[in-house]
């Protein structure tokens, strides 16, 4: 079965500290992995996708197929990073059907 697991509902860190939001998945095929973010009173928006191998707002994520993980990392958290983060996956051959995790709320304290 297709599943995305985000084990932490809430993650609190101090400004300047490293942050890692965990995401594990199960998928019977070749997955595409994404991170979406929702800032307070804003819409859900794409943060990054693994296929692009890009760094957005200082965030990176590496797909580890052996551990079936796609953790989101940032070396130095900023207060403006406080938001709800969702990990999501779709299939390489069924890329229009997305599965989302339940989300992790990141709170960056001053």
């Amino acid at each position, binding site marked *: 079965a297709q599943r995305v697991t985000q084990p932490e509902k809430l993650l609190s860190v101090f400004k300047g500290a490293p942050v890692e939001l965990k995401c594990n998945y199960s998928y019977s095929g070749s997955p595409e992995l994404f991170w979406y973010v929702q800032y307070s009173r804003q*819409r*859900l928006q*794409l943060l990054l996708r693994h296929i692009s191998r890009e760094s957005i707002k200082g965030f990176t994520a590496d797909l580890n197929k052996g551990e079936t993980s796609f953790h989101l990392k940032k070396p130095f958290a900023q207060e403006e990073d406080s938001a709800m983060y*969702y990990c*999501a996956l779709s299939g390489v051959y069924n890329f*229009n059907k*997305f599965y*989302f995790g*339940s*989300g992790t709320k990141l709170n960056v304290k001053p």
Partner: protein
Amino acid sequence: GAGVSQSPRYKVAKRGQDVALRCDPISGHVSLFWYQQALGQGPEFLTYFQNEAQLDKSGLPSDRFFAERPEGSVSTLKIQRTQQEDSAVYLCASSLNGQDTDTQYFGPGTRLTVL
């Protein structure tokens, strides 16, 4: 330009009532998606359109849920005989071509409360 819009933003229905939720995608976007987001959960896929064709409706939870996009632009999600478990935020998203490299752009959602 204008993003994805949804109306109404909030809807309160009595159990058993029918509701209709509207989504206006970004102009020219071929693909349109509906998601259901229960409190404390991530979005769950309901259905997907490419133009007017509904290509995947595997996520619709019951035959009380029906979605259409007759002219390939605006879409309506209809829920018949609403139940309390239908209470959720309903999100609409659109993407340009439905290709694997496309980005989905989300609307603000409609919060449905069934009493």
